[in-house]
């Protein structure tokens, strides 16, 4: 069986975290403090200390995974422990809180911990399911292959267009230039909307030129399909238009796959934009929580 961070060493860290969670939960349920359950009972202090140490350990993973020369465990082992103990830490912190929340730094620390764990869960889901899905839709092509193929299609199209008319060349050149490949900022990558446009009415003054959406090359295909055999058109020109239509269709398919690929890559990366900064904020909030609790004892 393939060993991933999920089933690392027969779920070693899953078991450890599970047993730890169970012990904590049972202790919490059996404990009968004299005051309503809160972070200030002996169990509250114990759970708080454990949770804080766990958070520090979990944050150390960020250092360990960058130290390629480190021999303290394997990176996959650390990741496995990070995932399972992270879930256990949230439970322990929840019990430490005694379910008391308010508008204060203590609740901020807890909410940050929840957000870090949630984003981590999303990361686990992404790492487990996306690579397979990406492989499936990408086939054997790499991103550079996609780009090369699209460039080839553009280049063939322009070559054909030049043989038809300067207007056609301009139309195709503008279409190629204004193609949205799904790049740009993270939000655009995630949204994966085709914002390609097409400039219509080139060289046909006094008609005004206009910019229209060319999502999935639809505008280009429609424009090409609307070309009717006129008096001046030759057999050769018509067959070239036919060929251009085929090329536009192929480009549309390639663009869609590239866009999905870009979206997956962004999804795999987006959670880290939450997970890491929130984790840093959590460490700060945790320190403040510990200090202020005893500052105003």
């Amino acid at each position, binding site marked *: 069986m393939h060993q991933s961070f999920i089933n690392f060493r027969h779920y070693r860290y899953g078991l450890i975290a599970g047993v730890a969670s169970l012990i904590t939960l049972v202790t919490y349920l059996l404990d009968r403090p*004299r*005051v*309503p359950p809160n972070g*200030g009972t002996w169990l509250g202090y114990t759970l708080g200390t454990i949770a804080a140490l766990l958070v520090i350990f979990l944050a150390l993973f960020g250092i360990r995974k960058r130290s390629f020369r480190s021999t303290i465990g394997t990176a996959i082992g650390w990741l496995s422990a990070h995932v399972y103990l992270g879930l256990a830490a949230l439970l322990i912190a929840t019990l430490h809180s005694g379910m*008391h929340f*308010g508008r*204060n*730094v203590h609740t*901020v620390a807890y909410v940050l911990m929840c957000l870090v764990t949630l984003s981590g869960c999303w990361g686990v889901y992404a790492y487990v399911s996306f690579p397979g899905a990406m492989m499936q839709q990408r086939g054997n092509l790499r*991103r550079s292959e996609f*780009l090369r193929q699209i*460039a*080839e*299609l*553009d*280049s063939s199209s*322009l*070559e054909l267009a*030049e043989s038809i008319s*300067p207007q056609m*060349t*301009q139309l195709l*050149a503008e279409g*190629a230039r*204004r*193609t*949205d*490949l799904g*790049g*740009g*900022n*993270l939000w655009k990558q995630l949204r994966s909307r085709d*914002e390609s*446009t097409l400039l219509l*009415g*080139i060289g046909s*003054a*006094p*008609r*005004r*030129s206009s*910019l229209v959406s*060319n999502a999935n090359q639809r505008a280009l295909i429609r424009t090409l399909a609307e070309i009717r055999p006129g008096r001046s058109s030759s057999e050769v020109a018509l067959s070239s238009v036919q060929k251009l239509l085929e090329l536009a269709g192929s480009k549309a398919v390639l663009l869609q796959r*590239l866009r999905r690929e870009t979206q997956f890559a*962004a999804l795999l990366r987006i959670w*880290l*934009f939450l997970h*890491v*900064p*929130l*984790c*840093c*904020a959590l460490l*700060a*909030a945790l320190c*403040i929580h510990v200090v202020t*609790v005893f*500052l*105003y*004892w």
Partner: protein
Amino acid sequence: MLICLIREIAGSASAAHKQTPGTVFKTAELTIGSAPDQYLQVPHKEVDPQHAVLRMTSDGRLLLTALGPRGVVVNGHRETRVVLYPNDTLQLGDTSVKVEVPNGFGNEQYTCLLRVSDPYAPDETSPAAAAHTGMRRSRFTISFWSWTLTLGVAVVFLLVPMGTFLAPSVRKLLRSTPLVPSDALWSAGPLHATHRFIGNDCTACHVNAFERVRNSECEKCHDDVQHHVDVRSADVAVFDRQRCAACHFEHKEPATLVLRDQRLCTDCHARLDKLKSDPQIENAADFGSHHPEFRLAVLSRDEIVAPGQWQPQWLDSSNAATFKESSHLKFSHAQHLNPQGIKSPKGERVLQCGDCHRPNSSGREMMPIRMETQCSGCHSLHFDEHDPTSGVPHGNLQAMFRVLREHFSRQYLESTGPTMRTQTDRLRRPGQEARQMSIDEQRRARDWADTESLKMARELLEKRVCVDCHDVTRVLGASGFDQWQVTPVRLTQNWMPRVRFNHAAHITKPCTSCHDTAERSKRSSDILMPRIAKCRECHGDANDTSKLSSDCVMCHRFHLPQRGRFDTAALKARASQ
């Protein structure tokens, strides 16, 4: 404005030999950038998605305005706003845009003509390939967000609130300014409603950093709190290091100012016999299962120890001979609660408990029973059935005798009977002074009034009115009005001095469901207080789930009256000795 764009590939055949077809836009402004929706689109990494915009000014000049921080490069100079003239060249990445003098096109006159030269030939490489598909490099990296969030949290939740703690001069300002973070953000939970007037003045109680709230801070307001034990006794040492906050808990939810966990009491009271050599009270661990029988206190007089004073005396419930009240009142509950009714001035009347036992305004306790309010409606003190105004006062024998004397004196003077006529046969004439009684007549009148008064007093005290309810004794050797003595009556009001009982909380039950012997009781000495078993029918242990869970503080208090101040300064001084 009407703009013509002519786009050609630098060095290509089309540019050299033939006119490239132009693109004509009619638009108020010509957008320039790398995004596909720009009129003049140049996909290049040095060109922003919305790079610049070309407008026509009111005086007909072409104004180019850069939209991004990198500006626009016109004729080799970087500008933010520039007016374009013919032959000016705008550089967009590798693409150059030249402003030309517009030619007429048909009947229309272009506002301007821009000749765009792209650097690559269409058959060499696709413009699409040059476009960027990966993550655009941004200032907003993971580490940027990490630092921003971390510093944000530190500033909002530590640095600014720390100002409130460290700088008393700005403390008030920070706390009162809305949206400015203060040390209120460190509060672990809301204050109890009774303490909310303190507001967000944390340092009112949290005086020293990293030190738990001291009792002295509590005593600033609660300066007359009584101790649990007599402060003069040795027991007080047990409480020397006790913090107010051990029982009175703040900033926790649910907001309970008094902790009800009975281990706070039973830590000592479950084994009081082992802690004290002479425990005056028995061990108690839980109401439903480990609690001694109720100990009742009745008021009684010990004429030797404290003459004339009523003192509470503990009763021994195991000794039937002494387990009784000694109020010296003759009273039968059974007779008064007779379901057939009892004689009253308005005929037969069936009495209910509440006709005499009335709650005070809070409903918690019963008002004292008084002759004037509860009894006199039926028990009249009239002594002369011919005179409805006649009546003796209650509670004072001397006053009673005085009223009797006055009554019979008046009767003597006003009487028109044969006995008196001989004394008053001469009527007073108008204009003449009333005739003075002679000394002899006066003596005769006084003797007569005294005799009649004594006769009436004897009847009232020994036969029909006073004696109905009171113990009346004759004083040996005494005569006249001094020969009688009525034993004082005092009904016990507080049977359990260490317990708070709330009648109002039990109002849904009839009185006799707890005071179940009342209807059968014929003597006032009968104790009608319910025993613990009666309470346990409804009240269980603190953790009982089948009955009303009842903890210690439901009935008892920690701070007991007349024990002396719970003065921590004194406690500390003693602890250090």
